[in-house]
C-alpha cells in the first residue's frame, strides 16, 4: 500500500537532488564567468587600445564588439597602479566588460563633467577604499595624460539624486553600486566619487600646504 507513494517520492528526491546540484554548478560557473569576462575583456580591450594608440589597427577589441575604448582610467601612480579601459556607453553589456562612460556627459579629460559607471564587485570594487585627495589619471586616445584629484566621496539614493553635467573644468564622476557587500543586486544606493582636474603645479602646492 505504501509502495506507490514511496516510489514517487524517491524519484522526486533523486530528480531534485540532481537538479539542485546541476543548478548549483551552473550558478557557480556563471558567477565565475562574470569575473572572468570582466578581466578577460579588459585585457583584450587594453591590447586594442595600444594598437590604436600606436596607429596600427582598430580599437575594436574583438571582431563582433559594438563598443570601443574611450580612455584609460588609472587609480594612483606607478606601474602597478590599477588601470581600466573605459568603454563608450553605459549599457549593461558594456559594464560587464569595463567601466563605461555616459555618452551624454563630457569626454574624459575634456572640460565638463564626465560620468563613468562601473560594477561594484568587479572593476570598481576598488572604490571601496578611495578617499578624498587620491589621485586619478585619465589617458586619452591622443596619449594625453590628465590628472585628477578626488574632491568628494558620497553616497546618494539613485531614485532621488541626479548628476549635473555642468562643470567649468575637466571633472570625473565615478559611480558604482553601494553598499559593496550586499548579496542581492539592485540596491538603490550609489557611491559617487568626484575628482577635479589638477595641474602638476597644484599637486606640488597642495603637498606644501599643511
Amino acid at each position: 500500500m505504501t509502495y506507490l507513494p514511496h516510489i514517487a517520492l524517491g524519484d522526486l528526491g533523486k530528480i531534485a537532488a540532481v537538479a539542485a546540484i546541476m543548478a548549483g554548478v551552473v550558478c557557480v560557473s556563471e558567477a565565475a564567468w562574470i569575473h572572468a569576462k570582466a578581466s578577460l575583456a579588459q585585457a583584450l580591450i587594453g591590447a586594442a587600445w595600444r594598437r590604436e594608440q600606436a596607429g596600427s589597427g582598430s580599437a575594436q577589441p574583438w571582431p563582433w564588439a559594438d563598443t570601443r575604448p574611450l580612455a584609460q582610467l588609472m587609480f594612483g601612480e606607478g606601474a602597478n597602479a590599477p588601470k581600466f579601459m573605459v568603454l563608450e556607453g553605459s549599457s549593461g553589456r558594456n559594464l560587464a566588460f569595463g567601466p563605461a562612460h555616459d555618452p551624454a556627459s563630457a569626454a574624459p579629460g575634456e572640460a565638463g563633467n564626465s560620468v563613468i559607471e562601473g560594477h561594484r564587485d568587479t572593476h570598481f570594487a576598488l572604490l571601496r577604499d578611495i578617499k578624498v585627495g587620491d589621485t586619478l589619471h585619465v589617458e586619452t586616445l591622443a596619449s594625453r595624460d590628465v590628472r585628477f584629484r578626488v574632491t568628494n566621496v558620497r553616497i546618494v539614493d539613485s531614485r532621488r539624486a541626479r548628476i549635473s553635467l555642468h562643470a567649468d573644468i575637466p571633472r570625473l564622476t565615478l559611480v558604482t553600486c553601494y553598499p559593496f557587500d550586499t548579496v542581492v543586486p539592485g540596491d538603490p544606493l550609489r557611491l559617487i566619487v568626484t575628482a577635479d582636474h589638477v595641474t602638476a603645479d597644484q599637486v606640488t602646492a597642495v603637498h606644501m600646504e599643511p
Partner: protein
Amino acid sequence: MCLFHLASRAAVTVSIVGLFAWLSGAPPASAHEPLEARSGTLYLKSSPDAEAYEALRVATTMQAQITGNVARVHVTQAFSNAGSDWVEGLYVFPLSADAAVDELFMKIGERTLRGEIQEKAKAQAAYAQARSEGKQASIVDQERPNMFTTAVANIAPHSTVSVEITYLETIPYRDSRYTLRLPLAITPRYTPGAGLDPAAPLAAANAAVVNAEDGTSATPERVTASRQNVDITVELAAGFPVGSVASLHHVVDMKDDALGKQIHLGGSQIPADHDFELVWTPAAAGDVETAAFAEKVGDDTFALIVLTPPNAADEAIQAREVTFIIDTSGSMQGPSIEQARAALQLGIDRLTPSDRFNIIRFASDYSSLFAVPQPVDASSRVLAGQFISALRADGGTEMRAPLERAMSTPPNVGLLRQIVFITDGSVGNEAELIALINRQIGTTRLFTVGIGAAPNAYFLEQAAAAGRGSYTFIADREQVASRMQDLFRKLERPALIDLKLLWPDDLTAEVAANVPGDVYAGDPLVILARLPRSPSGHLTMSGRMRGNDWVHQVQITRVGEQSGLSKLWARERIADLSRHLQFGGDREQLRSSILDLALKHHLVSEFTSLVAIDDVVVRPPGSSGHVEQAPTSAPTGSYWATTGFAKTATPAGLLLYCGLLCITLGGLLCWTRSRRQMAS
C-alpha cells in the same frame, strides 16, 4: 516518522522549484511594490519603465500679502491623481532662503487639517505609519534652506488632495527698490547639503547619509519642461506712496484696490524657467529713514528695526584708504588667480584721487606694492598695474604677517580705512588670527572675499565679523567680476559709520544676527531682536555721517501678534545658528538650540517638519499603490545626466551563494537517500 519525511521532502522540493523560478528571471523586487512593503524614506524610481505611469500633477497657486516690508505667502499645491492606483505624491519646490515656513493645512473634501510642527524624525515616522495604515497624511520637510519637499500619502484614484503651506519673509530692499521673489524653478544641484570631511573614511561618509539629519541626503530633484500652470496673486500694501511697480519676467494684470495694488499672473502656459519677481519703489526717497516695530509674545518682545540710508546717487564718495590683501598661494593656480587679478585691477580702477591704497600679496611669504599706502595718481596706478600682472600663484598660505602689517600701519586722519582680503585658502590657526583682528582692528574695517568652491567660510565670516565688515563668498568663478563690482561700489559709499544701538531702559537685546559696523548706501539694515520685556520710550541709534556725529531716536511701534515678528526673528536666528553648524560649530549644542527655536515658533527647519495626519482610513487594505514625484521646472540653461543610474552590481555574488546553496541541498538529499536505502 514517515509523515515527517514526507513533509520535509516536500519542503525541500518546493524551495528548489522556487529557486529555479526565481533564477530564471523573476526580478528580486517587484516594480509595483505594495505600499506596505516600503518603510522609511520616500520612493522614486529613476529607471525608464518607471516613467510609464504619470498620473500625478501638482497645480500651484500662490497668494502673497505684503504689509510694509513683510510678506505673508500662501502656497497651495493641489495633488491630482488621474490614475486608477492609489498614489503617494512627492513634490520638491523652491522658496527663498529666509522663508519662515510656519503652517501646513491639508484639505480633504470639506475638512481642513492643521499640520503640527515636530522633530523631523518623529514627523517622518508618524507620516510613514499613517501611510501604511491607509490614512491620508502630508508632510513638509526642508531639504536645503531654499528647497522644500511636500509628500502626500494615499491620494485616492481620480481624486485631488490640496495642501496649503504658509510662510513669512522680510522683503529685501536694495538700491531704492523692494523685490519680492517667488521662486518657480529649482536649479539642479549635484552636491547638496554639507560637504564631507576630506579625511573621513568611507564608513563615516556612509553614516552621514544614513543619518539624514545631516542634510547629506541626496537632493530629490526631478525637472520638466519650462511651461507650467501658475496662478499668482500679490496684494501690495507698501505702507508708503508707491512710485512704480513692475514684474521683471512675466506679463501681469495690475489694478488698484482699497489697500494698495493687486497684481495677478495666471494661465496654463506660463514660462516657469524664471522666478516671479515683483519690484516696487517708494515715490520719494528721503534722507535716513528708520522704523521700529515690537510684538509681544508671552514674556518676550520681538523687535524689527529698519534703517534705510540715503540713496546712493546723491551721496558723496567718502575718501578712503584701501589695502588689498591677495592670496597667491598654489591653490589659487589657474582661473582663480586670473579672476582675482581682474577683480584687483577693477578695485584699483575705481579708486578716486582723494583715496590712498596699497596691495599686499602673500603665499608662504608676503610682499607689498608700497611700504605705506600711497595717494592714487597716474604713476601709482601704473605701478599697481605692473604689480598685479606679475602676480603668480605658488607656495603656502601664511596669512598672519600680511594681516598684521595692514592693520598696524598708522592711520591717515580723515580717511576711512578698509582692508579687502581676497583668498580661497584654508588656515589652521583660525583662533589666533581672529584674536589678532580683535586686538588690532581699531577703526579699520575688514572685508573678506572667498573665491572658489571651498574657502574656509567659517573663518572668513568670523574674521569679517571681528573686523566689523562683511563677507562675500563667490563660488562661481564667472561671477567674480560682477560680485566684486558690487562690493567695491558699496565700499565707496558708507552712509553711516560706526553704528551703535542703544535700547530703551538699558534693555539687553538678543539680535538674531551680528549688527555690522557701517551702513552702506542702497543697502538698508534690517535688525531683528528679542527683548526681555516691552520697551517704553525710544531706541537710540548713533554713528557718524559725512564726518559729523549722528544721533537718531526712533519710536518703537507696538504691533499685533499676527505680524509674525517673533517668527521672523526665530527664522533669522536659526539661519545664523545653521551657518555656525555648517562652519564647524559645536554640533549637539547648535542642533538642540535650532530644534528648540523651531518647535517653539512652529517653524520648519533642517531638524523639524510640519506633518498633518487624518484619522480616517481611506485606502482599503491590499489595494495597489505607488509613489510618483511631480516635476518641478528647471531654470534656463541647466544640464543633466540623462541616463540616470545604470545597474552597477553584477549578480555574481548572488549566483555564487545560490549555487553553493543548491549544491549543498542536493548533496544533503543524496546523502539522506543513500542512508535510507542502506537502512531499508
